[in-house]
Protein backbone atom coordinates (compact mmCIF):
# COMPACT_ATOMS: atom_id res chain seq x y z
CA UNK A 1 0.00 0.00 0.00
CA UNK A 2 1.27 3.48 -0.84
CA UNK A 3 1.65 6.40 1.52
CA UNK A 4 -1.12 8.28 -0.27
CA UNK A 5 -3.48 5.37 0.37
CA UNK A 6 -2.41 5.39 4.03
CA UNK A 7 -3.38 9.01 4.20
CA UNK A 8 -6.79 8.48 2.66
CA UNK A 9 -7.46 5.43 4.79
CA UNK A 10 -6.52 7.36 7.90
CA UNK A 11 -8.84 10.22 6.87
CA UNK A 12 -11.66 7.71 6.45
CA UNK A 13 -10.87 6.36 9.88
CA UNK A 14 -11.25 9.87 11.30
CA UNK A 15 -14.75 9.98 9.84
CA UNK A 16 -13.98 12.47 7.09
CA UNK A 17 -16.85 12.65 4.62
CA UNK A 18 -15.91 15.67 2.53
CA UNK A 19 -12.62 17.17 1.36
CA UNK A 20 -12.44 20.55 -0.35
CA UNK A 21 -9.53 20.78 -2.71
CA UNK A 22 -7.79 21.32 -5.99
CA UNK A 23 -5.33 18.88 -7.59
CA UNK A 24 -1.86 19.50 -8.97
CA UNK A 25 1.50 17.83 -9.53
CA UNK A 26 2.77 17.06 -6.05
CA UNK A 27 -0.59 15.99 -4.59
CA UNK A 28 -1.48 13.67 -7.49
CA UNK A 29 -0.81 10.41 -5.64
CA UNK A 30 -3.46 11.41 -3.07
CA UNK A 31 -5.96 12.28 -5.80
CA UNK A 32 -5.29 8.87 -7.30
CA UNK A 33 -6.00 7.21 -3.96
CA UNK A 34 -9.18 9.27 -3.53
CA UNK A 35 -10.66 7.55 -6.60
CA UNK A 36 -10.97 4.37 -4.54
CA UNK A 37 -12.33 6.09 -1.43
CA UNK A 38 -15.84 6.82 -0.27
CA UNK A 39 -14.75 10.32 0.78
CA UNK A 40 -16.42 12.96 -1.36
CA UNK A 41 -14.08 15.48 -2.92
CA UNK A 42 -15.41 18.92 -3.79
CA UNK A 43 -13.47 20.62 -6.55
CA UNK A 44 -13.39 24.35 -5.95
CA UNK A 45 -12.01 26.85 -8.47
CA UNK A 46 -9.37 28.45 -6.25
CA UNK A 47 -7.56 26.88 -3.31
CA UNK A 48 -8.45 29.78 -1.02
CA UNK A 49 -12.06 28.73 -1.42
CA UNK A 50 -11.15 25.16 -0.45
CA UNK A 51 -9.80 26.35 2.89
CA UNK A 52 -12.69 28.77 3.48
CA UNK A 53 -15.28 26.13 2.54
CA UNK A 54 -13.65 23.70 4.97
CA UNK A 55 -13.89 26.46 7.58
CA UNK A 56 -17.60 27.02 6.85
CA UNK A 57 -18.23 23.28 6.97
CA UNK A 58 -16.45 23.07 10.32
CA UNK A 59 -18.34 26.00 11.86
CA UNK A 60 -21.69 24.71 10.70
CA UNK A 61 -21.12 21.11 11.86
CA UNK A 62 -18.62 21.33 14.70
CA UNK A 63 -16.57 18.67 12.86
CA UNK A 64 -13.04 19.11 11.55
CA UNK A 65 -13.01 20.68 8.06
CA UNK A 66 -10.51 19.22 5.61
CA UNK A 67 -8.92 20.96 2.64
CA UNK A 68 -6.21 19.91 0.26
CA UNK A 69 -3.98 21.49 -2.36
CA UNK A 70 -0.82 20.86 -4.25
CA UNK A 71 2.61 22.32 -3.48
CA UNK A 72 3.73 25.84 -4.30
CA UNK A 73 0.91 28.18 -5.36
CA UNK A 74 -1.76 25.65 -4.39
CA UNK A 75 -0.40 25.64 -0.88
CA UNK A 76 0.10 29.42 -0.62
CA UNK A 77 -3.46 29.96 -1.84
CA UNK A 78 -4.67 28.00 1.19
CA UNK A 79 -2.91 30.33 3.59
CA UNK A 80 -5.64 32.97 3.94
CA UNK A 81 -8.17 30.26 4.76
CA UNK A 82 -5.83 28.65 7.28
CA UNK A 83 -5.22 32.03 8.93
CA UNK A 84 -8.97 32.64 8.97
CA UNK A 85 -9.49 29.36 10.85
CA UNK A 86 -6.64 30.16 13.21
CA UNK A 87 -8.00 33.57 14.18
CA UNK A 88 -11.49 32.21 14.82
CA UNK A 89 -10.38 28.92 16.44
CA UNK A 90 -11.95 26.69 13.80
CA UNK A 91 -10.92 23.00 13.68
CA UNK A 92 -9.31 22.28 10.33
CA UNK A 93 -6.80 19.91 8.77
CA UNK A 94 -5.06 21.24 5.66
CA UNK A 95 -3.12 18.77 3.53
CA UNK A 96 -0.57 20.02 1.04
CA UNK A 97 1.45 18.13 -1.53
CA UNK A 98 5.17 18.84 -1.44
CA UNK A 99 7.95 18.20 -3.93
CA UNK A 100 9.88 14.97 -3.38
CA UNK A 101 12.19 14.97 -0.36
CA UNK A 102 15.27 14.76 -2.62
CA UNK A 103 14.17 18.04 -4.26
CA UNK A 104 13.21 19.88 -1.09
CA UNK A 105 15.52 22.80 -0.47
CA UNK A 106 16.61 23.04 -4.12
CA UNK A 107 14.03 25.61 -5.32
CA UNK A 108 12.34 22.89 -7.33
CA UNK A 109 9.32 23.53 -9.55
CA UNK A 110 6.34 24.46 -7.38
CA UNK A 111 8.40 24.13 -4.24
CA UNK A 112 7.50 26.45 -1.41
CA UNK A 113 8.16 26.11 2.30
CA UNK A 114 4.51 25.93 3.26
CA UNK A 115 5.47 24.47 6.63
CA UNK A 116 7.48 27.61 7.34
CA UNK A 117 4.99 30.01 5.77
CA UNK A 118 2.10 28.76 7.88
CA UNK A 119 3.92 28.52 11.23
CA UNK A 120 2.34 31.71 12.61
CA UNK A 121 -1.20 30.65 11.66
CA UNK A 122 -1.43 26.98 12.59
CA UNK A 123 -2.04 25.31 15.89
CA UNK A 124 0.48 22.70 14.82
CA UNK A 125 2.01 21.26 11.66
CA UNK A 126 3.63 18.10 10.38
CA UNK A 127 6.05 17.30 7.61
CA UNK A 128 5.67 13.62 6.73
CA UNK A 129 9.07 11.97 6.53
CA UNK A 130 8.03 8.33 6.16
CA UNK A 131 4.92 6.63 4.87
CA UNK A 132 4.67 4.50 7.99
CA UNK A 133 4.11 7.51 10.24
CA UNK A 134 1.19 8.87 8.19
CA UNK A 135 -1.60 7.12 10.14
CA UNK A 136 -0.16 8.52 13.39
CA UNK A 137 0.25 12.00 11.91
CA UNK A 138 -3.33 12.09 10.63
CA UNK A 139 -4.69 10.92 13.95
CA UNK A 140 -2.62 13.48 15.85
CA UNK A 141 -3.62 16.24 13.44
CA UNK A 142 -7.32 15.63 14.05
CA UNK A 143 -6.85 15.34 17.79
CA UNK A 144 -4.94 18.62 17.93
CA UNK A 145 -7.34 20.43 15.56
CA UNK A 146 -10.39 19.78 17.74
CA UNK A 147 -9.04 19.55 21.29
CA UNK A 148 -8.91 22.42 23.77
CA UNK A 149 -9.09 25.63 21.80
CA UNK A 150 -9.59 24.32 18.25
CA UNK A 151 -7.50 25.45 15.29
CA UNK A 152 -5.98 24.49 11.96
CA UNK A 153 -3.27 21.82 11.55
CA UNK A 154 -1.14 21.43 8.43
CA UNK A 155 0.16 18.15 7.01
CA UNK A 156 2.80 18.64 4.33
CA UNK A 157 3.27 15.46 2.30
CA UNK A 158 6.23 15.09 -0.08
CA UNK A 159 5.38 13.28 -3.29
CA UNK A 160 7.91 10.46 -2.83
CA UNK A 161 6.50 9.69 0.62
CA UNK A 162 3.02 9.57 -0.89
CA UNK A 163 4.33 7.02 -3.43
CA UNK A 164 6.32 4.90 -0.96
CA UNK A 165 4.99 1.38 -0.52
CA UNK A 166 4.87 0.19 3.05
CA UNK A 167 2.73 -1.90 5.37
CA UNK A 168 -0.18 0.02 6.84
CA UNK A 169 -0.27 0.04 10.56
CA UNK A 170 -3.50 1.21 11.98
CA UNK A 171 -2.94 3.89 14.61
CA UNK A 172 -5.11 4.09 17.65
CA UNK A 173 -4.52 5.85 20.90
CA UNK A 174 -6.83 6.52 23.74
CA UNK A 175 -5.40 9.83 24.93
CA UNK A 176 -8.21 11.98 26.21
CA UNK A 177 -9.26 15.06 24.27
CA UNK A 178 -11.24 16.47 27.17
CA UNK A 179 -9.72 19.69 28.43
CA UNK A 180 -9.02 20.07 32.12
CA UNK A 181 -11.67 21.01 34.65
CA UNK A 182 -11.30 24.41 36.29
CA UNK A 183 -9.87 24.45 39.80
CA UNK A 184 -12.26 24.37 42.74
CA UNK A 185 -10.55 27.42 44.16
CA UNK A 186 -11.28 29.46 41.04
CA UNK A 187 -14.92 28.40 41.11
CA UNK A 188 -15.28 29.38 44.77
CA UNK A 189 -13.72 32.79 44.14
CA UNK A 190 -15.89 33.36 41.08
CA UNK A 191 -19.04 32.47 43.01
CA UNK A 192 -18.08 34.96 45.72
CA UNK A 193 -17.77 37.77 43.18
CA UNK A 194 -21.05 36.78 41.56
CA UNK A 195 -22.90 36.92 44.88
CA UNK A 196 -21.34 40.30 45.76
CA UNK A 197 -22.25 41.88 42.44
CA UNK A 198 -25.28 44.12 41.93
CA UNK A 199 -24.76 44.86 38.22
CA UNK A 200 -23.25 41.79 36.58
CA UNK A 201 -22.99 41.27 32.83
CA UNK A 202 -22.02 38.15 30.90
CA UNK A 203 -19.76 38.73 27.89
CA UNK A 204 -20.42 35.74 25.65
CA UNK A 205 -17.86 34.76 23.03
CA UNK A 206 -17.31 32.24 20.30
CA UNK A 207 -15.85 29.73 22.76
CA UNK A 208 -19.36 28.79 23.88
CA UNK A 209 -20.29 27.39 20.50
CA UNK A 210 -16.84 26.06 19.63
CA UNK A 211 -16.59 24.47 23.08
CA UNK A 212 -19.96 22.77 22.66
CA UNK A 213 -21.18 24.48 25.82
CA UNK A 214 -24.44 25.90 24.53
CA UNK A 215 -26.72 23.95 26.87
CA UNK A 216 -24.59 24.71 29.91
CA UNK A 217 -24.41 28.39 28.96
CA UNK A 218 -28.16 28.70 28.58
CA UNK A 219 -28.78 26.90 31.87
CA UNK A 220 -26.29 29.27 33.51
CA UNK A 221 -28.12 32.33 32.18
CA UNK A 222 -31.59 30.98 32.95
CA UNK A 223 -30.64 30.24 36.55
CA UNK A 224 -28.46 33.25 37.39
CA UNK A 225 -30.64 35.58 35.27
CA UNK A 226 -27.60 37.71 34.42
CA UNK A 227 -28.03 39.84 31.27
CA UNK A 228 -25.66 38.85 28.46
CA UNK A 229 -23.95 40.70 25.65
CA UNK A 230 -22.31 38.87 22.77
CA UNK A 231 -19.29 39.22 20.55
CA UNK A 232 -19.68 38.73 16.80
CA UNK A 233 -18.90 35.05 17.26
CA UNK A 234 -20.95 34.77 20.42
CA UNK A 235 -24.20 35.74 18.68
CA UNK A 236 -26.74 32.94 19.02
CA UNK A 237 -25.30 31.66 22.30
CA UNK A 238 -28.59 33.03 23.57
CA UNK A 239 -31.38 33.33 20.99
CA UNK A 240 -31.50 36.94 19.75
CA UNK A 241 -35.04 37.30 21.07
CA UNK A 242 -34.18 36.05 24.58
CA UNK A 243 -35.14 38.65 27.19
CA UNK A 244 -31.65 38.59 28.72
CA UNK A 245 -29.84 38.88 25.37
CA UNK A 246 -28.73 42.50 25.10
CA UNK A 247 -27.24 42.09 21.63
CA UNK A 248 -23.78 42.54 20.22
CA UNK A 249 -21.18 44.65 22.02
CA UNK A 250 -18.37 46.70 20.52
CA UNK A 251 -17.76 48.92 17.54
CA UNK A 252 -21.11 48.25 15.89
CA UNK A 253 -22.84 46.85 18.92
CA UNK A 254 -26.10 47.95 20.46
CA UNK A 255 -26.33 50.94 22.75
CA UNK A 256 -27.84 48.67 25.36
CA UNK A 257 -25.02 46.12 25.23
CA UNK A 258 -22.23 48.67 25.36
CA UNK A 259 -23.89 50.67 28.10
CA UNK A 260 -24.43 47.57 30.21
CA UNK A 261 -20.77 46.59 29.91
CA UNK A 262 -19.53 50.11 30.59
CA UNK A 263 -21.60 50.40 33.78
CA UNK A 264 -21.45 46.85 35.15
CA UNK A 265 -19.63 46.03 38.36
CA UNK A 266 -18.82 42.46 37.32
CA UNK A 267 -18.00 41.21 33.84
CA UNK A 268 -18.13 37.48 33.32
CA UNK A 269 -16.27 36.76 30.13
CA UNK A 270 -17.13 33.35 28.71
CA UNK A 271 -14.93 32.09 25.88
CA UNK A 272 -13.97 35.50 24.50
CA UNK A 273 -10.66 37.31 24.16
CA UNK A 274 -11.15 41.07 24.65
CA UNK A 275 -10.65 41.76 20.94
CA UNK A 276 -10.22 45.45 20.09
CA UNK A 277 -13.37 45.54 17.95
CA UNK A 278 -15.32 44.34 20.96
CA UNK A 279 -13.71 46.43 23.69
CA UNK A 280 -13.09 49.77 22.03
CA UNK A 281 -10.36 51.69 23.87
CA UNK A 282 -9.15 49.03 26.24
CA UNK A 283 -8.25 51.23 29.20
CA UNK A 284 -11.78 52.66 29.21
CA UNK A 285 -13.49 49.29 28.78
CA UNK A 286 -15.85 48.23 31.57
CA UNK A 287 -14.07 50.66 33.90
CA UNK A 288 -15.96 49.72 37.05
CA UNK A 289 -15.98 45.98 36.58
CA UNK A 290 -14.20 43.19 38.27
CA UNK A 291 -13.58 40.40 35.76
CA UNK A 292 -14.18 36.68 35.87
CA UNK A 293 -12.67 35.13 32.75
CA UNK A 294 -13.67 31.62 31.70
CA UNK A 295 -11.55 30.16 28.93
CA UNK A 296 -10.04 26.89 27.84
CA UNK A 297 -6.95 28.77 26.65
CA UNK A 298 -4.93 29.99 29.61
CA UNK A 299 -2.96 32.33 27.33
CA UNK A 300 -6.06 34.44 26.66
CA UNK A 301 -6.69 35.14 30.32
CA UNK A 302 -4.94 38.29 31.41
CA UNK A 303 -3.57 38.87 27.89
CA UNK A 304 -5.33 42.22 27.47
CA UNK A 305 -7.37 42.73 30.64
CA UNK A 306 -6.45 41.52 34.06
CA UNK A 307 -8.82 38.90 35.37
CA UNK A 308 -9.71 39.14 39.05
CA UNK A 309 -10.67 35.49 38.86
CA UNK A 310 -9.37 33.32 36.03
CA UNK A 311 -11.40 30.15 35.50
CA UNK A 312 -9.26 28.05 33.21
CA UNK A 313 -10.53 24.89 31.60
CA UNK A 314 -13.48 23.26 29.97
CA UNK A 315 -16.33 25.78 29.65
CA UNK A 316 -19.02 23.17 30.15
CA UNK A 317 -17.64 22.22 33.56
CA UNK A 318 -16.99 25.83 34.53
CA UNK A 319 -20.49 27.01 33.59
CA UNK A 320 -22.12 24.10 35.36
CA UNK A 321 -20.15 24.82 38.51
CA UNK A 322 -21.11 28.51 38.42
CA UNK A 323 -24.81 27.95 37.82
CA UNK A 324 -26.63 29.21 40.89
CA UNK A 325 -29.44 31.53 41.93
CA UNK A 326 -28.42 35.13 42.60
CA UNK A 327 -30.30 37.63 44.72
CA UNK A 328 -30.35 41.40 44.40
CA UNK A 329 -29.85 41.87 40.67
CA UNK A 330 -33.50 42.36 39.79
CA UNK A 331 -33.33 46.21 39.52
CA UNK A 332 -30.28 45.93 37.25
CA UNK A 333 -31.95 43.32 35.07
CA UNK A 334 -35.00 45.56 34.71
CA UNK A 335 -32.77 48.50 33.76
CA UNK A 336 -31.08 46.41 31.06
CA UNK A 337 -34.24 45.01 29.55
CA UNK A 338 -35.91 48.44 29.63
CA UNK A 339 -32.93 49.91 27.77
CA UNK A 340 -33.30 47.17 25.19
CA UNK A 341 -36.83 48.34 24.50
CA UNK A 342 -35.87 52.01 24.45
CA UNK A 343 -33.07 51.39 21.95
CA UNK A 344 -34.81 48.79 19.77
CA UNK A 345 -33.87 48.96 16.07
CA UNK A 346 -35.96 51.31 13.98
CA UNK A 347 -36.55 50.06 10.45
CA UNK A 348 -38.50 53.10 9.26
CA UNK A 349 -35.67 54.68 7.28
CA UNK A 350 -36.38 57.61 4.96
CA UNK A 351 -36.29 57.17 1.18
CA UNK A 352 -37.55 54.54 -1.22
CA UNK A 353 -34.29 52.72 -1.83
CA UNK A 354 -33.72 49.33 -0.32
CA UNK A 355 -32.75 49.68 3.34
CA UNK A 356 -30.32 46.82 4.00
CA UNK A 357 -31.10 46.43 7.73
CA UNK A 358 -34.81 46.19 6.94
CA UNK A 359 -34.17 43.71 4.14
CA UNK A 360 -32.15 41.50 6.47
CA UNK A 361 -34.73 41.69 9.25
CA UNK A 362 -37.45 40.54 6.84
CA UNK A 363 -35.22 37.84 5.39
CA UNK A 364 -34.43 36.59 8.88
CA UNK A 365 -38.10 36.48 9.82
CA UNK A 366 -38.95 34.51 6.70
CA UNK A 367 -35.91 32.20 6.46
CA UNK A 368 -36.54 30.87 9.94
CA UNK A 369 -34.46 29.28 12.68
CA UNK A 370 -33.00 26.48 10.59
CA UNK A 371 -31.37 28.82 8.12
CA UNK A 372 -27.61 29.36 8.05
CA UNK A 373 -26.13 32.70 7.07
CA UNK A 374 -22.59 33.02 5.75
CA UNK A 375 -21.44 36.56 5.22
CA UNK A 376 -18.48 38.29 3.75
CA UNK A 377 -16.74 41.24 5.37
CA UNK A 378 -17.76 44.85 5.52
CA UNK A 379 -20.93 46.79 6.14
CA UNK A 380 -23.26 43.96 5.17
CA UNK A 381 -21.47 41.72 7.68
CA UNK A 382 -22.29 44.15 10.49
CA UNK A 383 -25.88 44.51 9.29
CA UNK A 384 -26.23 40.73 9.39
CA UNK A 385 -24.83 40.66 12.92
CA UNK A 386 -27.19 43.45 13.99
CA UNK A 387 -30.41 42.48 12.26
CA UNK A 388 -30.50 38.74 11.65
CA UNK A 389 -31.93 36.65 14.47
CA UNK A 390 -29.78 33.76 15.57
CA UNK A 391 -30.82 30.77 17.59
CA UNK A 392 -27.39 29.15 17.79
CA UNK A 393 -23.86 30.28 16.96
CA UNK A 394 -23.47 27.68 14.19
CA UNK A 395 -26.20 29.50 12.27
CA UNK A 396 -23.93 32.49 11.75
CA UNK A 397 -20.76 31.98 9.70
CA UNK A 398 -18.73 35.17 9.79
CA UNK A 399 -15.03 35.87 9.54
CA UNK A 400 -14.47 37.64 12.85
CA UNK A 401 -10.78 37.66 13.68
CA UNK A 402 -9.17 37.83 10.26
CA UNK A 403 -12.01 39.71 8.53
CA UNK A 404 -11.60 37.87 5.24
CA UNK A 405 -13.46 39.41 2.32
CA UNK A 406 -14.46 36.51 0.09
CA UNK A 407 -15.26 34.23 3.02
CA UNK A 408 -19.01 34.07 2.54
CA UNK A 409 -19.57 32.18 -0.67
CA UNK A 410 -17.08 29.37 0.04
CA UNK A 411 -18.34 29.13 3.64
CA UNK A 412 -21.90 28.85 2.37
CA UNK A 413 -20.78 26.06 0.04
CA UNK A 414 -19.24 24.22 2.98
CA UNK A 415 -22.38 24.64 5.09
CA UNK A 416 -24.75 23.62 2.30
CA UNK A 417 -22.79 20.43 1.63
CA UNK A 418 -23.01 19.60 5.33
CA UNK A 419 -26.75 20.35 5.44
CA UNK A 420 -28.15 19.74 1.95
CA UNK A 421 -31.71 20.56 3.01
CA UNK A 422 -31.02 23.68 5.04
CA UNK A 423 -31.70 27.19 3.80
CA UNK A 424 -28.15 28.50 3.41
CA UNK A 425 -27.83 32.19 2.62
CA UNK A 426 -24.70 34.06 1.58
CA UNK A 427 -25.02 37.76 2.31
CA UNK A 428 -22.30 39.58 0.42
CA UNK A 429 -21.26 42.98 -0.88
CA UNK A 430 -20.11 44.18 -4.25
CA UNK A 431 -16.54 44.34 -2.98
CA UNK A 432 -16.43 40.99 -1.22
CA UNK A 433 -18.22 38.89 -3.84
CA UNK A 434 -15.47 39.63 -6.35
CA UNK A 435 -12.88 38.08 -4.05
CA UNK A 436 -14.16 34.55 -4.63
CA UNK A 437 -16.61 35.05 -7.48
CA UNK A 438 -15.26 31.99 -9.29
CA UNK A 439 -17.05 29.80 -6.73
CA UNK A 440 -20.36 30.50 -8.45
CA UNK A 441 -19.12 27.78 -10.80
CA UNK A 442 -18.80 25.42 -7.81
CA UNK A 443 -22.39 26.19 -6.79
CA UNK A 444 -23.52 25.25 -10.26
CA UNK A 445 -21.35 22.15 -10.54
CA UNK A 446 -22.77 20.62 -7.37
CA UNK A 447 -26.15 22.28 -7.76
CA UNK A 448 -26.04 23.71 -4.25
CA UNK A 449 -29.17 25.76 -3.50
CA UNK A 450 -27.31 28.63 -1.78
CA UNK A 451 -29.25 31.91 -1.81
CA UNK A 452 -26.97 34.86 -2.47
CA UNK A 453 -27.99 38.33 -1.35
CA UNK A 454 -25.56 40.76 -2.92
CA UNK A 455 -25.84 44.27 -1.48
CA UNK A 456 -24.39 46.67 -4.01
CA UNK A 457 -23.52 50.25 -3.08
CA UNK A 458 -20.98 50.63 -5.89
CA UNK A 459 -18.30 51.18 -3.28
CA UNK A 460 -16.09 49.55 -0.69
CA UNK A 461 -18.70 50.62 1.79
CA UNK A 462 -16.99 50.14 5.13
CA UNK A 463 -13.81 51.86 4.00
CA UNK A 464 -15.91 54.60 2.40
CA UNK A 465 -17.77 55.04 5.69
CA UNK A 466 -14.50 55.41 7.62
CA UNK A 467 -13.16 57.88 5.10
CA UNK A 468 -16.37 59.87 5.42
CA UNK A 469 -16.43 59.88 9.21
CA UNK A 470 -12.77 59.79 10.19
CA UNK A 471 -10.77 61.03 7.19
CA UNK A 472 -12.62 64.26 6.36
CA UNK A 473 -14.41 62.69 3.40
CA UNK A 474 -11.14 62.19 1.58
CA UNK A 475 -12.24 59.21 -0.49
CA UNK A 476 -9.38 57.04 -1.60
CA UNK A 477 -9.85 54.00 -3.85
CA UNK A 478 -13.33 53.08 -2.70
CA UNK A 479 -15.27 53.70 -5.90
CA UNK A 480 -16.63 50.56 -7.56
CA UNK A 481 -19.04 52.23 -9.92
CA UNK A 482 -17.61 50.19 -12.78
CA UNK A 483 -18.75 46.89 -11.25
CA UNK A 484 -19.77 44.25 -13.76
CA UNK A 485 -23.42 43.46 -14.29
CA UNK A 486 -23.69 40.93 -11.48
CA UNK A 487 -26.87 39.36 -12.82
CA UNK A 488 -25.23 38.61 -16.13
CA UNK A 489 -22.10 37.32 -14.40
CA UNK A 490 -24.21 34.92 -12.33
CA UNK A 491 -26.29 33.85 -15.31
CA UNK A 492 -23.17 33.18 -17.34
CA UNK A 493 -22.20 30.69 -14.63
CA UNK A 494 -25.62 29.09 -14.71
CA UNK A 495 -27.00 30.80 -11.60
CA UNK A 496 -30.39 32.50 -12.00
CA UNK A 497 -30.28 36.09 -10.85
CA UNK A 498 -32.52 39.10 -10.48
CA UNK A 499 -32.21 42.71 -9.46
CA UNK A 500 -33.91 44.52 -6.59
CA UNK A 501 -33.86 48.31 -6.74
CA UNK A 502 -36.85 49.54 -4.81
CA UNK A 503 -37.91 49.05 -1.21
CA UNK A 504 -41.41 48.18 -2.37
CA UNK A 505 -39.98 45.13 -4.14
CA UNK A 506 -38.19 43.66 -1.13
CA UNK A 507 -41.00 41.40 0.02
CA UNK A 508 -41.45 39.88 -3.44
CA UNK A 509 -37.70 39.51 -3.81
CA UNK A 510 -37.43 37.55 -0.58
CA UNK A 511 -40.30 35.32 -1.73
CA UNK A 512 -38.52 34.65 -4.97
CA UNK A 513 -35.20 34.03 -3.27
CA UNK A 514 -36.60 31.50 -0.83
CA UNK A 515 -38.86 29.79 -3.38
CA UNK A 516 -36.07 29.09 -5.84
CA UNK A 517 -35.20 25.37 -5.55
CA UNK A 518 -31.59 25.80 -6.69
CA UNK A 519 -28.92 28.47 -6.32
CA UNK A 520 -30.00 32.04 -6.97
CA UNK A 521 -28.53 35.51 -6.68
CA UNK A 522 -30.45 38.63 -5.71
CA UNK A 523 -28.57 41.74 -6.77
CA UNK A 524 -29.80 44.35 -4.29
CA UNK A 525 -28.96 47.99 -4.97
CA UNK A 526 -28.63 50.16 -1.88
CA UNK A 527 -27.74 53.79 -1.34
CA UNK A 528 -24.07 54.46 -1.96
CA UNK A 529 -23.72 56.43 1.26
CA UNK A 530 -25.53 54.02 3.54
CA UNK A 531 -23.57 53.60 6.78
CA UNK A 532 -23.52 51.13 9.63
CA UNK A 533 -24.89 52.70 12.79
CA UNK A 534 -24.14 53.06 15.58
CA UNK A 535 -20.34 53.11 15.51
CA UNK A 536 -17.55 53.55 18.03
CA UNK A 537 -14.79 55.54 16.37
CA UNK A 538 -11.19 54.30 16.29
CA UNK A 539 -9.42 54.82 19.60
CA UNK A 540 -12.70 55.73 21.30
CA UNK A 541 -14.30 54.16 24.32
CA UNK A 542 -17.46 52.07 23.93
CA UNK A 543 -19.20 54.78 25.97
CA UNK A 544 -18.80 57.16 23.02
CA UNK A 545 -21.04 55.59 20.39
CA UNK A 546 -21.88 57.72 17.37
CA UNK A 547 -25.49 57.53 16.21
CA UNK A 548 -26.78 58.55 12.84
CA UNK A 549 -28.93 61.42 14.09
CA UNK A 550 -26.05 62.85 16.14
CA UNK A 551 -23.67 62.83 13.19
CA UNK A 552 -26.33 64.39 10.95
CA UNK A 553 -26.75 67.19 13.53
CA UNK A 554 -22.99 67.67 13.65
CA UNK A 555 -22.87 68.05 9.85
CA UNK A 556 -25.82 70.47 9.84
CA UNK A 557 -24.02 72.88 12.20
Amino acid sequence: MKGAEFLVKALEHEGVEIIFGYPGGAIMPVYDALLDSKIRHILVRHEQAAALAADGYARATGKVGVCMATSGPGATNLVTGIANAYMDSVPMVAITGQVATSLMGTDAFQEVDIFGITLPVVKHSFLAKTAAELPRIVHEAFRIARSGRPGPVLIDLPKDIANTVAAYEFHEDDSSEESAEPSEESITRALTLMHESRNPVVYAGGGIGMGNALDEFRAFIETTRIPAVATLKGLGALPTTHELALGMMGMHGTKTANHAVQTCDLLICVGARFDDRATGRLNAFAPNARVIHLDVDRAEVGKLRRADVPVIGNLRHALKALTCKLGNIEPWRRECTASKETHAWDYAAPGTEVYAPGFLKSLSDRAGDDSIVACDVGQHQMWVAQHFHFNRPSQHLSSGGLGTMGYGLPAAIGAQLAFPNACVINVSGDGSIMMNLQELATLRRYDLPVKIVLFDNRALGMVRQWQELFHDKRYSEVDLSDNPDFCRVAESMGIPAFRVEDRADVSGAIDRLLAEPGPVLAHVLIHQEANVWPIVGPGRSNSEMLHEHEVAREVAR
Partner: protein
Amino acid sequence: MNKFTLQLRVKHSEGALVRILGVTRRRRFDLLHLTADTTEDGHFLDIQMTVQADRAENTLVRQIEKLEDVSQVEVVEPGETAGERRTARSTAC
Protein backbone atom coordinates in the same frame (compact mmCIF):
# COMPACT_ATOMS: atom_id res chain seq x y z
CA MET B 1 11.71 46.75 30.10
CA ASN B 2 11.19 43.34 31.58
CA LYS B 3 14.13 41.00 31.07
CA PHE B 4 13.98 37.31 31.94
CA THR B 5 15.32 33.90 31.04
CA LEU B 6 13.31 30.83 30.06
CA GLN B 7 14.38 27.23 30.19
CA LEU B 8 12.44 25.06 27.73
CA ARG B 9 12.29 21.40 26.83
CA VAL B 10 10.86 20.78 23.38
CA LYS B 11 10.35 17.64 21.34
CA HIS B 12 13.03 17.63 18.64
CA SER B 13 10.47 17.79 15.84
CA GLU B 14 10.39 19.56 12.46
CA GLY B 15 10.70 23.30 12.99
CA ALA B 16 10.67 23.15 16.80
CA LEU B 17 13.23 25.91 17.35
CA VAL B 18 11.79 28.13 14.59
CA ARG B 19 8.36 27.77 16.14
CA ILE B 20 9.61 28.99 19.53
CA LEU B 21 11.51 31.89 17.98
CA GLY B 22 8.49 32.79 15.85
CA VAL B 23 6.17 33.01 18.85
CA THR B 24 8.78 35.07 20.68
CA ARG B 25 9.04 37.57 17.84
CA ARG B 26 5.30 37.74 17.08
CA ARG B 27 4.48 38.47 20.70
CA ARG B 28 7.02 41.31 20.59
CA PHE B 29 9.74 39.91 22.84
CA ASP B 30 13.33 40.72 21.83
CA LEU B 31 15.79 37.86 21.93
CA LEU B 32 19.02 38.68 23.77
CA HIS B 33 20.61 35.28 24.19
CA LEU B 34 19.91 31.70 23.17
CA THR B 35 21.48 28.28 23.67
CA ALA B 36 20.01 25.04 22.41
CA ASP B 37 21.23 21.46 22.82
CA THR B 38 19.77 18.10 21.92
CA THR B 39 19.30 15.72 24.81
CA GLU B 40 21.45 12.60 24.81
CA ASP B 41 18.72 10.42 23.36
CA GLY B 42 18.21 12.97 20.57
CA HIS B 43 14.46 13.20 21.23
CA PHE B 44 14.37 16.66 22.80
CA LEU B 45 15.92 20.08 22.61
CA ASP B 46 16.86 21.91 25.79
CA ILE B 47 16.70 25.64 25.13
CA GLN B 48 17.66 28.52 27.35
CA MET B 49 16.73 31.96 26.07
CA THR B 50 16.91 35.43 27.53
CA VAL B 51 14.43 37.96 26.21
CA GLN B 52 13.19 41.43 27.01
CA ALA B 53 9.91 43.21 26.41
CA ASP B 54 7.46 45.73 27.79
CA ARG B 55 5.05 42.87 28.30
CA ALA B 56 4.82 40.57 31.28
CA GLU B 57 6.77 37.31 31.14
CA ASN B 58 3.59 35.27 31.47
CA THR B 59 2.42 36.59 28.09
CA LEU B 60 5.26 34.71 26.45
CA VAL B 61 5.34 31.76 28.84
CA ARG B 62 1.72 30.94 28.14
CA GLN B 63 2.02 31.23 24.39
CA ILE B 64 5.03 28.90 24.42
CA GLU B 65 3.30 26.46 26.77
CA LYS B 66 0.53 26.09 24.20
CA LEU B 67 2.87 24.79 21.51
CA GLU B 68 2.20 21.13 20.92
CA ASP B 69 5.77 19.88 21.28
CA VAL B 70 6.76 21.93 24.32
CA SER B 71 6.90 19.80 27.45
CA GLN B 72 8.47 22.22 29.91
CA VAL B 73 8.67 25.99 30.35
CA GLU B 74 10.32 27.55 33.37
CA VAL B 75 11.51 31.01 34.27
CA VAL B 76 15.06 30.69 35.58
CA GLU B 77 18.02 32.84 36.49
CA PRO B 78 20.44 33.11 33.54
CA GLY B 79 22.86 30.18 33.54
CA GLU B 80 20.96 28.36 36.25
CA THR B 81 21.05 24.57 36.05
CA ALA B 82 18.04 22.31 36.03
CA GLY B 83 18.23 21.52 39.74
CA GLU B 84 18.17 25.17 40.74
CA ARG B 85 15.20 26.27 38.69
CA ARG B 86 12.18 27.87 40.17
CA THR B 87 8.96 26.98 38.43
CA ALA B 88 7.15 29.49 36.28
CA ARG B 89 4.22 31.13 37.96
CA SER B 90 1.14 29.30 36.87
CA THR B 91 -1.75 30.89 38.72
CA ALA B 92 -1.15 34.65 38.69
CA CYS B 93 -2.64 36.56 35.80
